[in-house]
């Protein structure tokens, strides 16, 4: 594909493309990342090390990657979709073989300069492949069973590999993200109704399997679900995370306890305070005002993406932007639900804010694709 598919009036080229980037989106992303720096600075007790400084460096790296990706025409990325997907799958398989164990799960490949989490990469490449697939597929075939099963398989292969690590959070995000793209591409309602019904059935089966030898989830995952359902049963054990996180959030009140004054995080009551639970520190120190502001920023990012997608006549571009936005939404929605006690603790970071190298880099590459679609949209 190229502009040849559309009747276009104007095509930016070379460094001119910079003026056609979605600048409000970049500013929003930087604002959110800055909140992250601030919180990482705070949780380390007012110090740039060990978290705030590397995070800033990574953000600059991510921003650079975003620009590079944005400069390359979107159709190149569309043509790369299948290859990117296959590479991701191979990396996921490799992680099984040579992966580094972390927190009871095999998730990383040590590349020397950074630790690559292939499941993170998968989130973006899956979106790319699905968008490319529905771009290629004639509209009238979209809801035919055979053409529905194909993307389902494309989704389930990485899901199976990620589940094996085991990483429940990412598997759920992959299924949900893939499902959302299929839905937005126009697959018939009935399929989703069936899948949701099936999902409920599966959940029932998962709980039924508990304690038998065909148990479908690891014990720690069951325990997380248990403590989500009733954190009070084990406030010092497995329920500790949720309980302490709610205490931190709640004690923030309207305006919070002040920058670097959060007792819960400063005194280490918060678990994973620099990664998955960083939102609680924000909520504790800046209160409802701070937490809600972050939510607004996230909402604005989603809105800018959706607007960009809907004004784009290219089907691949629209679906890609919507898919990245959906994945982004799922990230922060699941993370926030988790720390606020609305969802079980599944180990999903808060996008752009949580400390973590590969997640941020890959997310920025994802937004690079969004920018590329924005810059190279048919005008």
């Amino acid at each position: 594909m190229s502009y040849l598919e559309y009747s276009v009036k104007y095509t930016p080229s070379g460094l001119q493309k910079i003026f056609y980037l979605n600048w409000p989106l970049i500013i929003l992303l930087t604002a959110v990342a800055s909140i992250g720096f601030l919180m990482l600075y705070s949780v380390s007790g007012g110090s740039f090390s060990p978290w705030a400084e590397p995070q800033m460096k990574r953000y600059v790296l991510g921003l650079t990657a975003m620009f590079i990706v944005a400069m390359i025409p979107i159709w190149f990325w569309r043509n790369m979709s299948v290859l990117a997907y296959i590479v991701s799958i191979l990396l996921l398989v490799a992680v099984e073989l040579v992966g580094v164990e972390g927190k009871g799960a095999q998730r990383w490949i040590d590349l020397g300069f950074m630790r690559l989490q292939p499941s993170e990469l998968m989130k973006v490449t899956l979106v790319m492949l699905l968008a490319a697939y529905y771009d290629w597929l004639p509209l009238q075939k979209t809801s035919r069973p055979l053409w529905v099963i194909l993307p389902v398989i494309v989704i389930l292969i990485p899901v199976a590999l990620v589940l094996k690590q085991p990483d429940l959070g990412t598997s759920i995000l992959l299924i949900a993200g893939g499902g959302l793209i299929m839905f937005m591409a126009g697959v018939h309602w009935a399929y989703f109704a069936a899948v949701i019904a099936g999902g409920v059935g599966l959940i029932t089966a998962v709980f039924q399997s508990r304690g038998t030898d065909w148990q479908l989830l690891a014990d720690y995952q069951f325990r997380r679900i248990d403590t989500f359902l009733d954190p009070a049963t084990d406030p010092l054990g497995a329920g500790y995370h949720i309980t302490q996180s709610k205490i931190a959030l709640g004690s923030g009140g309207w305006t919070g306890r002040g920058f670097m004054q959060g007792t819960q995080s400063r005194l280490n009551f918060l678990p994973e305070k620099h990664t998955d639970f960083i939102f609680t520190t924000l909520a504790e120190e800046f209160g409802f005002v701070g937490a809600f502001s972050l939510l607004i920023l996230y909402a604005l990012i989603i809105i800018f993406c959706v607007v960009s997608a809907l004004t784009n006549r290219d089907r691949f571009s629209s679906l890609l932007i919507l898919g990245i936005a959906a994945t982004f939404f799922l990230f922060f929605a699941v993370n926030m639900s988790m720390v606020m006690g609305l969802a079980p603790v599944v180990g999903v970071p808060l996008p752009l804010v949580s400390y973590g190298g590969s997640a941020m880099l890959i997310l920025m590459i994802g937004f690079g694709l969004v920018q590329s679609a924005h810059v190279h949209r048919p005008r």
Partner: protein
Amino acid sequence: MKRPTRDTAESHKLITRRSLVVGGSMAAFMGLLGLRMRYLQVEQADQFRLLADENRINIQLIPPSRGRIFDREGRVVAENVPSYRITLIREQVGDMELDEVIERLGQIVTLDPNEVEEARADLRKVRGDTPVTLADRVSWEDISRVAVNTPALPGVTPEVGLSRHYPLGPDYAHLIGYVGPVSDRDLEEIDAPDALLLIPRFQIGKIGLESQREDTLRGKAGSKRVEVNAAGRVMRELDRVEGEAGADIQVTLDNALQSYTAARLEGESAAAVVMDCETGDLLACASAPSFDPNLFVRGISVANYRALLDDKYRPLPNKAMQGVYPPGSTFKMVTALAALEAGVVDPNETVYCPGHLRVSNRRFHCWKRAGHGNVDLHRSLRESCDVYYYEMAVRTGIDKIAEMANKLGLGIEHELPLTSVSAGLIPTKLWKETSKNDDWRVGDSVNASIGQGFVLASPLQLAVMTARLATGRSVSPRLVKSVDGVEQPVNRGEPLDINENLLREIRDAMNAVSNNRRGTAYRSRIIEDAFRMAGKTGTSQVRNITAAERARGVFRNEDLPWERRDHALYVNFAPIEAPKIAVSVIVEHGGGGSKAAAPIARDITLQALYGGEPPLEAYPAADRDRIREQQERLRRARPVADDGSRDRA
């Protein structure tokens, strides 16, 4: 290739429609997240703020230092010495296994397996934030080693605490008692225990003065609020409320005299009481053998405790106050005074003693088989004629004797802050009817007249009796001189309401007991005129010598097994002209009072009156060599307490 426009437009419409649905759902979900934030952070904020404070703020008790105990001169009797111990707080162990921490600690310092076992039991019982002692009385070197290694030992804290110490050890064991760690039994007995008591191994008074004056000595706990991190490590102190140290107590006892008395009794199963005649202050009060209370503070080993229980000389009870004995002839002053007051006899009237008296078909023997012949009051006491008192008992009746005994402080419980002070027993007709369900017989009176039969008295009571005879006032014993510097009231007592002339007759006779060549205690007299004493010997039978034994010819005490020999007693006051102290001594199964008890009482009396070691000139010439030897022996056994231990009191 160009896509058909229709397809593109249609697909765009579809995507727009669908993404608006998805976008709407996202917006709805974000609204839900916002509402949840509002709920947690605005509506529930106060509750969570409280929880956060509960998280970070720990209230720690500061144990008060226990009040010290001093003797009447301000010398230390019980003090607090720093003791190093290693404690463990379960909550702070964190991810490591408890056993692993204990094992690591064991590699750094040697732990007593028993203590560790006990600590494990405590750890299971107490709240997670309570420190449990892993090792007590640790050396400074060990404590330093643990302090250096604390990063590798989460939850382990080297601590400096105060522990009770009794520098004079066994000398005061029976009076002051000892402290020990709070036990579950202790807690059960207290309705609303002080939070302090919940600190494992907090020391409280277990027995004696330590236990009876616990409230005074304990003080009030202070508290501090500290900010802790999730691992429980204290980050900073927020504020503190200082506790109140326990009040110091000064006892009426005199360290030097107490130590001397305890030393003088050593080797016997005996007790002695020295009391100030005027004020009732107990100057010394010893029970032998004794035990080291410091062993109990540490927690005595089973073997040591068993040894104390099995000792036939019974080291644990305080014989001076808990122990009751038939007072024997020391009771004769009571019978005599009762008879004189009742007017049934005149001091100069004589009674013929043929060696026995027949009362209602039973022969009651005098200790002197041959008899004393004609005996008046003076001679009856001096030579301790029994028949005279049999006669007096028959004439006077038991109830009047009992009344006199009570007046003199026998058969009543003297109030002292000690765990058990015995009331002894002075029988009356009513008493026998109610408790024995039997009629009083004349023979009972006859037995009681010489302090046998049902009569029981403690050495303390006998000392009180002697003091009252000496002063004519109902003086009562006092153990606590001052509390927190405030002098406690002295009970000099009311005049006894006994004819002073009769009392003088008794005192004269007691003088003769000690200072008349024919007195029963003449051999244990005091030569120094200013300190001469008046006394009375007593020899009380533990059980009657059976007819069979008499037939076998067993008359002498020495021939009987120890536990069936007579008790030896002696009571005295001195100096005669202006009585200052009253002394009573009992030597269990010691044989005759004049031989076993009187010399001890004389030595103690001299020691008390001289305020130290008396010159040999105070002793009868014949005794001096033996006394010199004895003094040297006691000096060696007990170096005189240096005055360096004199403390501000």
